[in-house]
């Protein structure tokens, strides 16, 4: 087995009363292309944010292991990470290239290096003619492609992709999937968050199923189908995720004043990355 580059050890994450993730442990190895699969609100985005150090675990730890096996907190090795968040996060008044260059500069990459790499990937994704256009008028697919190039422009070892084919047409989605497979063959580790099981089966050699904040399965598609005695991966997924919603602490009964105050200041509380929108 190739060396471990990221280790998630007994990680739990709570937002107030809501347990977004509970006791999740995963090891990621060099060259793995891992599908992170789960329904809306399963906890995929929360896990991805823990993996790139945006959230701190309530319990457990996430560590990056370098070539010598020395452990580092993820926040210290972000230059090794390439992230495509679900929202893509592009600046509308900047061109696609300026968006990419901004991130590559923050990653300490020279503009020339970044441009060469950007142009090569842009050509693979058929977007090279749009690099000098402001992203304001971009379609969802073009935004996804730009965000993907931005994540790759500094040649990271680990890629975290949140719904990378969301909004893409069939041809573009196919190109992205081909690129992801190629990245895995080059020895990069990719975490590919999706709720499309057929896509995960096509792209990934290992699938992690998250449901209601808990890790339900971790293995190859064949292993998951074998373990559940299911004829298809979809059936295996359904069998692994048939249970009630996540655990929520029962709050203390509110006092009359609290009830009155709550009526005055009612807000819909929802844990970040866990409330459906981001996992949709």
């Amino acid at each position, binding site marked *: 087995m190739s060396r471990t580059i990221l280790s998630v050890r007994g990680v739990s994450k709570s937002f107030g009363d809501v347990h977004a993730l509970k006791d999740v442990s995963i090891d990621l190895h060099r060259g793995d292309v891992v599908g992170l699969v789960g329904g809306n609100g399963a906890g995929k985005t929360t896990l991805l944010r823990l993996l790139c150090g945006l959230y701190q675990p309530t319990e457990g730890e996430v560590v990056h292991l370098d070539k010598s096996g020395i452990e580092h907190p993820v926040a210290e090795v972000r230059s090794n990470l390439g992230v495509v*968040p679900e*929202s893509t996060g592009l600046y509308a008044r900047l061109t696609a290239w300026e968006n990419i260059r901004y991130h590559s500069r923050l990653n300490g990459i020279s503009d020339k290096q970044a441009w060469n790499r950007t142009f090569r990937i842009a050509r693979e994704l058929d977007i090279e003619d749009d690099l000098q256009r402001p992203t304001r008028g971009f379609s969802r697919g073009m935004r996804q492609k730009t*965000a993907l190039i931005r994540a790759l422009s500094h040649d990271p070892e680990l890629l975290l992709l949140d719904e990378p084919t969301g909004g893409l047409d069939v041809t573009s989605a196919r190109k992205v999937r081909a690129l992801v497979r190629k990245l895995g063959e080059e020895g990069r580790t990719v975490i590919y968050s999706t709720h499309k099981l057929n896509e995960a089966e096509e792209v990934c050699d290992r699938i992690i199923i998250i449901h209601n904040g808990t890790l339900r399965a971790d293995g190859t598609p064949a292993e998951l189908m074998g373990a559940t005695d299911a004829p298809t991966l979809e059936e295996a997924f359904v069998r692994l995720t048939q249970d009630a919603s996540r655990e929520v602490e029962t709050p203390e009964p509110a006092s009359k004043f609290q009830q009155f105050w709550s009526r005055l200041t009612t807000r819909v509380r929802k844990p*970040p990355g866990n409330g459906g929108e981001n996992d949709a």
Partner: protein
Amino acid sequence: MREGMARIWTVASKELVDFVRDWRTLVALVLVPLLIFPLFFIALPLFMQGEMSELDQYYLDLEVQLADGDELPDALSQPFADHRLNQTVTTLDPNLSNLSDTGDDAVRIQNGEIHVILRLRSSQSNSTESWDYAILYDATQELSSEARSRVFNVIEAWEDDIINATLAESNLTREEALDPIHWDGDFGEANVATSAQIAGFALSMFIPMIVAIWTASSAIQPSVDLTAGERERGTMEALLCTPARRVELLYGKWLAVATVAAGSVLFQMLGLLIAVSFLLPADTFGVPELSVGAIASLLLSVVLFAVFVVAIELALAVRAHSVKEAGTVLGPVVLAFIVPAMFAQFVNLEGIEWWWFVAPVFNVCLAMREALLDITDLTHVALWLGSSLFYAIVAVTWAAKQFQREDLVESIS
């Protein structure tokens, strides 16, 4: 360290490019500050002048009501015609309690039947001529007010003529009678202050307030846009995934907002100077002569104040759950800067108590006033410098703490 500085500069320069490409920001932070004072002090008076000369062209209806037996003086008849007043002469109602008693005439004026009524009644005195009068008009109607103003001017000129004639009978000129103690020479020459010092004094009443108010208000929109706005648009998450430390992102964003706010303040001061130089002659209002120390003091106070204000606004904007909430929070917060800045203009610098120079906002405004007046008091300098530095550090530390929040990625609410 060098990498950190490079990242701060990368963030700041990207944000500045983003600002420059937004025409709304350019209008709000460049065009408006540059034009606001010229608009108030040059365009508005010119416009009012134009409107007034438009009113001058109208022929207005005047009714002169004379007491029984009186005749319209010749000294009035021609000037009324010269002032485009169509005059009709009628007899005064003898039952009026006094000449200002509007009686039935109020309705006629309000209906627009007549623009103005002049009531005249000759009276007895030792003067060559003596009259009682009242002008009836409607202050809410432009033409009636204009007619009243023309009648009043004619009456004043007539009164001057009567005074001069009465004085002439006693062999006196107007100056001898009314101005027995008079100034000799040029009034302005007697002021020992140079035009540069006068400029420094005048600007010391404006500049600190403009700096305080405009720094606070112009930093709101960029502060909200670069924090709550980025979070709402989803760009913050991608940015936080880069190797840039959060404190570096804060400093980069702070630098961009402070640059924009400082630029905006400079544009507003430029507009003020253009307006003032247009209104006042160059020999009365020169360029303030400031020592190197005063200039350094002025710049330092502005910089420290900007650090303080922008850090507070960024921190508050980060804490807000949305752009809308950030705007709602920061609007009233600006008052916390504006009110002390306004009061600071009226604090007497002579014998000023030391604690004014450690009070937030007051300290910087007073420091700027002293700098513009070229006053160097080392105790004051030490106090405002120390306290401003302290407030700036506290504000930046607080802002840096807010930037470590998990909900910087996405609002919990």
